[in-house]
């Protein structure tokens, strides 16, 4: 069984253990199945790796990884509800998301290790989730006007979640020296979000980002262009979404021709390189560094 399969199995077992309402439980198990198909469970795997890296006793890696992945899955569902990407009826998804959010924290509280470690870990989870909510609001509030705004927003929205995964693994293992981990984890999160936002352009029909007028890096690049383009027309309200949508191939072609994708990929790569530099400074076994680097590249 792969690490990913072990984490998913543990997630289901936690649901079975703590959820008693049959309909909600069934929905949550289905959501985990769906999540397995769409995700590589990176957050859980990062928590697993960091617990394993710093732990000197006990084997709770899979359980901790599952707890983190449940919290992240809650975040994904909240994101979909807010973006109206997937759900027509929001009541059940909302309950599922709240269930996962609380269940992940309940699972951390249940790890058979010292209360002191768990208290620090749970406090860190709360802090990261608050950061992420701030980032989400900046995102949906369309407050992003510049590259600096965008990077600040994604650091809060996504950097905080990757930091949560890595740091919780370390804290529960008893390592409180988390500054370096927070730094590279945040860089990984920023790079991943830039890549996700690029995917949203490639998968225009599956995401509501363009309709919601979210400004990702390629869009900011097009808005700064000296040439007239469809992106400027759309964001200046000269054309509506329907007129933009029917010209989506042309809009993406304009991005490609002007170098907007290069730009986003370069910024993403800069953050990956920064993360690699920080990982290299870690005083840990080269084997772990190698696994960590493989996970982010």
């Amino acid at each position, binding site marked *: 069984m792969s690490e990913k399969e072990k984490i998913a199995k543990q997630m289901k077992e936690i649901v079975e253990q703590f959820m008693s309402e049959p309909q909600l439980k069934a929905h949550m198990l289905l959501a985990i199945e769906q999540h397995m198909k769409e995700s590589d469970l990176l957050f859980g795997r990062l928590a697993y790796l960091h617990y394993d890296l710093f732990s000197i006793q006990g084997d709770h890696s899979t359980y901790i990884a599952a707890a983190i992945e449940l919290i992240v899955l809650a975040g994904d569902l909240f994101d979909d509800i807010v973006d109206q990407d997937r759900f027509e009826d929001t009541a059940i998804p909302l309950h599922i998301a709240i269930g996962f959010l609380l269940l992940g924290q309940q699972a951390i509280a249940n790890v058979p290790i010292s209360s002191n470690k768990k208290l620090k870990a749970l406090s860190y989870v709360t802090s990261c989730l608050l950061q992420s909510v701030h980032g989400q609001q900046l995102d949906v509030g369309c407050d992003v006007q510049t*590259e600096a705004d965008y990077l600040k927003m994604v650091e809060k929205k996504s950097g905080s979640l990757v930091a949560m995964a890595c740091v919780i693994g370390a804290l529960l293992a008893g390592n409180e020296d988390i500054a370096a981990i927070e730094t590279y984890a945040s860089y990984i999160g920023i790079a991943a979000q830039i890549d996700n936002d690029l995917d949203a352009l*490639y998968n225009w029909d599956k995401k509501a980002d363009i309709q919601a007028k979210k400004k990702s890096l390629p869009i900011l*690049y097009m808005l*700064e262009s000296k040439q007239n383009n469809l992106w400027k027309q759309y964001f200046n309200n000269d054309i509506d979404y329907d007129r933009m949508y029917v010209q989506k191939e042309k809009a*993406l*072609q304009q991005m*490609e*021709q*002007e*170098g907007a*994708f*290069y*730009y986003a*990929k*370069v*910024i993403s*790569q*800069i953050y*990956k*390189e*920064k993360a690699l*530099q920080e990982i290299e400074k870690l005083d840990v076994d080269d084997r772990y560094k190698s696994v960590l680097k493989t996970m982010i590249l």
Partner: protein
Amino acid sequence: MQEIIRFLVEHPEVIEKLQNGTVSLIGLSELEVKAVVKVFSESTELLGYWK
């Protein structure tokens, strides 16, 4: 960074010189140049929406 990318898109011949180290980009750190070279070197494969 946006201006540099626009310049490189208009002058792709500079990429090879960057790789060879025969030209440098003023204002960019070594890490940033490394990222630029990597992305532009892999670009034909990665930027494949129109393939």
